[in-house]
């Protein structure tokens, strides 16, 4: 029988901030999205104050001042470092693991029940304790015979609906207990049931997990999709979704951001597009792919309808697929130069690499240089190696520019405590 666990860190971003800053103990903490726009993470104290997820920060300033809410810009180097450590600790408990998101992993625990005298529940508690001791993070563990049920069990553990001490194992609950538990949870909480689907289900009279569990899979398939049918079967304990240990290579790679302040000049837009392409091309090479087409988009701020609006997207197919930053950047800049119109306040730009294919199966072109350019590959390998060793952006194309006035606004960024020598936290010997 299959057994999965979903391990999920509580309030992950906010917990990372609290971990290194003793002044935040017991205080409400929120973490803001790119450009300090919206709340993307809340500590338990901030949740208790009723700060909603996704709330625009400027609407919360009064509440924040009154209640002493500490707000941080997203510190991705810190979160990524702690996330990698979390995955490493989980990997010590179970080698078959799927990193589902920055703070959630599925473990395939089939055959692990004998690892602990208290079975998988005890094993889950051990995982929780180790993560707390070693990393200072609190996780919840949900255990069930399918991934969908493991995710639901995790929800129950987090909300205190079932289980104890942050561990909820559906396998040790009776059918009666599960039925009454499912009755309390709305169908929208189930993995893969979004807001729209939940609304349509409700129209059919399916409001709770129990009703979704009891729904006829064939009807669900006919009315919705095979995906939702699978969800119903998974709720019934039939495992349909396997662990995805290797993330499949991406079909498209996107790199785009809103600017920290409006951008008017072509020169600055070129820098931004050059930078985004640098990042996208690095990701492209990391998955050993080449791109067959380049897309660039720019736009003004659609939320300021009184300002003059302009937006364009353009794509160019490449004569032969490549992963060379120089070539990809040159094409992107050519597209940008054609699209750019002066007199607009640009708010966002981005690049997308499309028609990705493995580097190893590139079709040569009759009229252009050989498809495999060893010099280019060697140069790009050197570029990536240097940036891996000395930090992202150490070596970059001059198209990326030096000043980067358009960069994200990150006014309340905490130090990169774990990834930069300059930012290593001080301890006082007083």
């Amino acid at each position, binding site marked *: 029988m299959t057994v999965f666990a979903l391990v999920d860190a509580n309030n992950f971003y906010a917990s990372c901030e609290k971990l290194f800053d003793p002044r935040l103990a*017991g205080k409400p903490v929120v973490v803001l999205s790119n450009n300090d726009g919206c709340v993307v993470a809340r500590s338990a104290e901030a949740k208790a104050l009723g700060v909603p997820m996704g709330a625009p920060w400027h609407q919360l300033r009064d509440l924040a001042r009154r209640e002493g809410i500490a707000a941080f810009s997203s510190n991705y180097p810190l979160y990524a470092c702690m996330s990698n450590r979390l995955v490493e600790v989980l990997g010590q408990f179970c080698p078959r693991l799927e990193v589902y998101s920055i703070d959630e992993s599925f473990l395939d625990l089939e055959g692990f029940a004998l690892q602990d005298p208290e079975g998988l529940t005890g094993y889950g508690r051990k995982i929780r304790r180790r993560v707390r001791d070693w990393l200072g993070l609190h996780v919840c563990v949900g255990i069930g015979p399918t991934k969908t049920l493991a995710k639901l069990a995790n929800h129950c553990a987090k909300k205190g609906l079932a289980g104890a001490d942050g561990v909820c194992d559906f396998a040790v609950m009776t059918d009666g207990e599960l039925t009454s538990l499912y009755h309390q949870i709305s169908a929208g909480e189930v993995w893969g049931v979004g807001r729209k689907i939940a609304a349509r289900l409700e129209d059919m009279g399916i409001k709770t997990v129990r009703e979704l569990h009891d729904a006829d899979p064939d009807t669900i398939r006919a009315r919705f999709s095979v995906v939702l049918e699978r969800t119903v079967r998974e709720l019934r304990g039939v495992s349909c979704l396997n662990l995805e240990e290797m993330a499949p290579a991406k079909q498209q790679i996107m790199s785009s951001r809103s600017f920290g302040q409006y951008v008017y000049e072509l020169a600055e837009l070129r820098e931004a597009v050059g930078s985004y392409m640098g990042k996208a091309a690095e990701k492209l090479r990391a998955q050993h792919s080449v791109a067959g087409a380049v897309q660039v988009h720019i736009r003004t701020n659609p939320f300021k309808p009184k300002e003059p609006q302009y937006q364009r997207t353009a794509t160019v197919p490449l004569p032969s697929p490549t992963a060379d930053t120089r070539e990809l950047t040159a094409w992107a800049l050519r597209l940008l130069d054609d699209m750019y119109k002066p007199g607009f306040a640009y708010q966002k730009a981005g690049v997308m690499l499309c028609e990705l294919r493995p580097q190893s199966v590139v079709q040569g072109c009759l009229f252009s240089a050989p498809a495999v350019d060893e010099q280019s590959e060697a140069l790009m390998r050197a570029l990536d190696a240097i940036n891996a060793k000395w930090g992202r952006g150490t070596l970059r194309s001059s198209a990326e520019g030096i000043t980067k006035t358009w960069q994200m606004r990150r006014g309340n960024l905490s130090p990169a405590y*774990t990834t930069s020598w300059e930012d290593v936290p*001080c*301890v006082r*010997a007083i």
Partner: protein
Amino acid sequence: MSELQLAPPLAPMPCHAVLSDLWAARLPVLPCLIPLGLSPVAAGFPSPAADYEDRRLDVSEYLIRNPVSTFFFRVSGDSMVEAEIFDGDMLVVDRSVTPQHGHIVVAFLRGERLVKRLEKRGGGRVVLCSANQAYPDFEVSDADELVVWGVVVGKFKRLL
């Protein structure tokens, strides 16, 4: 790999030379620099140390026993000098070590990050002790929410 060596000149042409040898012989025989370690040695004595090659010593391996649970902190102040912890030292803090009486620890107390010696005294009292006569010890009261963050297992510093 920094040592360089002159490549040996080409051997004299054997009498049964074939076309490819003649082609090779027409190449200009210029002295060229070849990194020593990369040139295969076809004859002669192999290095007597070849079978004893080992990896180089890695200082982080020496300092860090459990990388996943290890974090660094920089010391500011001199209240721990008698424990050989000086201003500017970088501390290696391993959270997988269970804090015990006598350990030097990083602790969060009253909104401060501190480095102190952990002492457990009678009656369940906990004291964060300094290792310098000029500094007081911190008696931890019930009202304090002491967090013993991790155990200091080593330290390092660059001098230049």
